């Protein structure tokens, strides 16, 4: 039996599907957050060099990874929308942007909180922090451009082009600790094994999965609102039970 993959690329069908999926993602995100924080704060041992302060890594690293990853996903959806002219892809791109910006802020914020006890300063103008800050500006530019164009179609396409142009920054952030010799420490998780204690790894990966699920749940909820807003004049929206009453 051939599955029709394109069935859910229409806002009409995706709206219902997203509504069914949100509780699952949201619920598992909540559980994983609880588990990850518990392991991170109570089970993982103290770090030899950084003492208790290192525990902020369990929020900082997942948030940073998500901030870069979500930008790539957003740019990918934007490109899909631009190439195939699908409405839903563009809606997904604009649904992801605020969450991505949020993770970028969390990453910068926790980085500052971590930097104060470790390096003695809230902020250093080194390559990784600067490029993460640029990433935040790129997210804000995307949101601002989208918001200032009234016609949704033009807004989608213009913002999509901007997202694609901006995506050159993401590899620069990722490799910045390798290319420049900076204050920021190198990557802790590598493909060739890590230098971490096993409980620390568990906490980190649980938190990463939790952030991931949270991002999906929030993006789906947001895309549902965008669909409702954009299609408010259509018949199928008027016939939805939650709209009808």
């Amino acid at each position: 039996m051939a599955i029709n993959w394109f069935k859910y690329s229409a806002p009409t069908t995706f709206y219902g599907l997203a509504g069914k999926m949100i509780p699952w993602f949201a619920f598992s995100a909540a559980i994983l957050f609880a588990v990850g924080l518990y392991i991170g704060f109570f089970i993982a041992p103290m770090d030899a060099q950084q003492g208790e302060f290192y525990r902020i890594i369990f929020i900082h690293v997942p948030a940073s990874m998500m901030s870069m990853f979500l930008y790539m996903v957003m740019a990918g959806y934007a490109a899909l929308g631009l190439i195939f002219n699908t409405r839903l892809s563009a809606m997904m791109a604009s649904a992801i942007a605020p969450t991505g910006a949020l993770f970028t802020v969390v990453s910068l914020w926790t980085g500052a909180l971590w930097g104060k006890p470790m390096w003695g300063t809230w902020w250093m103008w080194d390559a990784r922090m600067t490029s993460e800050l640029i990433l935040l500006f790129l997210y804000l530019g995307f949101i601002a451009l989208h918001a200032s164009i009234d016609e949704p179609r033009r807004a989608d396409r213009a913002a999509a082009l901007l997202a694609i142009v901006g995506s050159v920054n993401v590899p620069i952030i990722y490799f910045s600790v390798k290319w420049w010799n900076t204050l920021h420490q190198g990557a802790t998780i590598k493909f060739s094994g890590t230098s971490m204690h096993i409980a620390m790894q568990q906490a980190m990966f649980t938190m990463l999965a939790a952030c991931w699920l949270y991002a999906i749940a929030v993006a789906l909820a947001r895309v549902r609102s965008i669909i409702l807003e954009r299609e408010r004049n259509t018949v199928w929206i008027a016939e939805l039970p939650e709209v009808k009453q």
Partner: protein
Amino acid sequence: MKKSSMLDLLVLVIRRDLVLAMRRRADVLTTLVFFVMVVSLFPLGVGPELSMLRKMAPGVLWVAALLASMLSLGRLFSADYLDGTLEQMMLAPQSLSMLVLGKMAAHWMVSGLPLVLMAPVLGLQFDMSVQALGVLIVGLLLGTPILSMIGAIGAALTLGLRGGGVLLSLLVLPLCIPVLIFGTGAVEAISSGLSVVSHLSLLGALLVLSFVFTPWVTAQALRISME
């Protein structure tokens, strides 16, 4: 069509835009005066200590050049957009990317080149050494065309929007940060006795990359904005 028609087209667009700019000389001068003024404000703001000014000079000059080029970007397509010329350009059988490249080149000659020529004078106000000034000029020569080219993408995307000017800066400035970093990095390198080759090579690489990609991206952005 003749073989050289692409180049003819490029020359034609550049010449047309230069003539138009010369008819409205005030616009060109405003950008330049803005540049000079912003740079001159810094010694007044931070105090006239020469050792500090010497250290700040490349950064101040580069940031001022960046801001000054933002000022003139709004005009890159807007006049042609308002009087319908841009629509005709898009209907023309010739490549839109080439037309856009011509407009970028003309924009650089009008708003970038004067800044480069003015920079040594301002650099002397900051007591920069001759060597550092030379590197600054080379960096600006490589870097300001990139600012015009990246800026054109933003100008095309924000064409005809209300509050376009501020939005344009918000979109373009983050993308211009690498140019700023390598441009000032080169001057700092020569001041501390290091080689400037790596910074200038990276600037050159950025220039080549923008030269290849930005005209096409800008053309796409214009098509999106003009639908």
